[in-house]
């Protein structure tokens, strides 16, 4: 082995302990919905982009999505600058707390631990130049259900002994201006929703209830969908002929309790929908812990697009 290759071999970070879930994600897998392949990608795409921005990476570079923390720990083999954004998972470097939404340096042998959520649910850890992982259908996003993506190309989350490597050195070291970075949602937050055509099939009473009282985020929530609990919503449609499902679709199964379909949703499905949360609202919802109260707030498609474009301007 050449000297350069040996150096390369030592450049990495080892998984020492795992928590509930840590996945390699990028922006997602696009142009593949017609194959039955899901979108995947970072659920809180705003925090994910901030993490890459902090290192000067291309904003869609592969990073880690860490859910809850729960003792997930890493030990680095080489000096590296990482960026951490999104949820405050009480992260510590050799026992010292790390400030959220900033980059920091790790030295060989140092240990990084994610303990428990104090605010938000998902943290994003970005690596210089992005994580190395095999690309499948144009993306490194990891989907367990589809056995696609991830270090071992089986869609599985990180496990003990996995060794993460990255593409290069951080092109830049940036700081987020006070008040500009990702904001974790609090109870009572609003989720903008673009109303869909099936809205007319719901009863007037159900529609009043849908938008005039808070919904509670259920613990049946994952990257496929998030259940909301509250009064039952009912209408004239029970099932529909399966059709494509956009990100954030708010579908109402026969029990009347909404399910918001997230990044790892099935590509087609057959329940009537109220509409779809905006991309920004999906990012917000992905950070809500069970028990959080949320309001569905109707918005026009045009307004939602303006808000989305404004959000993108932050990084340009």
């Amino acid at each position, binding site marked *: 082995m050449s000297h350069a290759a040996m150096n390369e071999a030592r450049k990495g970070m080892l998984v020492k302990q795992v928590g509930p879930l840590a996945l390699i994600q990028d922006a997602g897998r696009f142009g593949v919905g017609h194959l*039955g392949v899901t979108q995947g990608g970072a659920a809180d795409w705003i925090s994910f982009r901030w993490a890459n921005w902090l290192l000067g990476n291309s904003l869609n570079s592969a990073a880690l999505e860490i859910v809850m923390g729960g003792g997930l720990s890493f030990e680095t083999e080489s000096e590296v600058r990482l960026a951490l954004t999104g949820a405050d998972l009480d992260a510590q470097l050799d026992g010292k707390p790390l400030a959220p939404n900033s980059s920091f340096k790790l030295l060989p042998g140092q240990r990084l631990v994610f303990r428990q959520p104090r605010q938000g649910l998902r943290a994003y850890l970005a690596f210089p130049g992005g994580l190395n992982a095999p690309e499948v259908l144009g993306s490194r996003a990891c989907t367990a259900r*589809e056995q696609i993506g991830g270090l071992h190309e089986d869609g599985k989350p990180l496990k003990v002994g996995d060794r993460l490597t990255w593409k290069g050195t951080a092109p830049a070291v940036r700081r987020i201006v006070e008040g500009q970075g990702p904001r974790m949602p609090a109870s009572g937050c609003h989720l903008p929703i673009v109303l869909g055509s099936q809205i007319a099939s719901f009863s007037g009473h159900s529609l009043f209830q849908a938008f005039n009282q808070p919904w509670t985020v259920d613990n049946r929530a994952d990257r496929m969908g998030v259940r909301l609990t509250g009064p039952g919503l009912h209408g004239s449609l029970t099932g529909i002929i399966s059709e494509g499902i956009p990100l*954030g679709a708010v579908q109402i199964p026969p029990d009347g309790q909404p399910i918001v379909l997230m990044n790892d949703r099935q590509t087609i499905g057959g329940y009537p929908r109220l509409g779809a949360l905006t991309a920004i609202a999906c990012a917000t919802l992905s950070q809500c812990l069970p028990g959080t109260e949320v309001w569905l707030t109707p918005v026009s*498609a045009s307004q939602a697009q303006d808000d989305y474009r404004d959000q993108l301007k932050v990084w340009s």
Partner: protein
Amino acid sequence: MKALIGRNAERNTNVRVETAAMDALMVRLFNTIDETNMAWVIAADQTLRKAFGAALIDLVPSYTTLLVHYDCQQVTHTNALQLIHKALSGLTPVDTQAGELHDIPVWYDESVGPELPMVAKRAGISVDELIKQHCNHDYCVFALGFAPGYGFMGLVDEALATPRLKTPRRKVAAGSVGIADRQTAIYPLLSPGGWNILGRTNVPLFEYAKRGDPLFRPGDKVRFRAISRAEFEADGGDTTPMEERP
């Protein structure tokens, strides 16, 4: 054939474009599932791909609809509506004979197809007759979804139609061939599922999808062919019995 196209042409005068999400529109062509829909769905798919070009993020056709997900940094909501209406005015159906016919060898056996006896009993026929009938039809691929490479096919003969299992299995083996109501499908990879499983094939649907080149495409036809255990094994088929029984 002419009469069918005529009927569809009439139905097709009522294309509806609906808001599905901030950056997604639903093109609704039909209200009911019908094999003759596919010539129009495929035509709309081709036309819309061309019309949106690089501004298209995803286009998901299904039985009666197409979901158009576009890049709202390039195209506004209003522009997208106009693009679709313009693209679909004067739409003509594709030649349905253009779809491929796939021959799919299946080992029908109770060990890998636990619902064989139950589906036969419901239909009031023998297991052998059920296998014969399941093989005796060119099924139309209506849509891809549920899992990478999973094709929803139909329509299964009314007599064989069987509702989904009350409690879905947590693990349905890859290659499992099943029936749900009047539809039939193959599970491309190990996944949960509630369809009635009749047998197993060794055709690697998932591998095709993962390469971005699915074996089945909407409008294709699929014909199942019963093979023996020996033939299935010789092809490298996995004979491990289905773990869970409903």
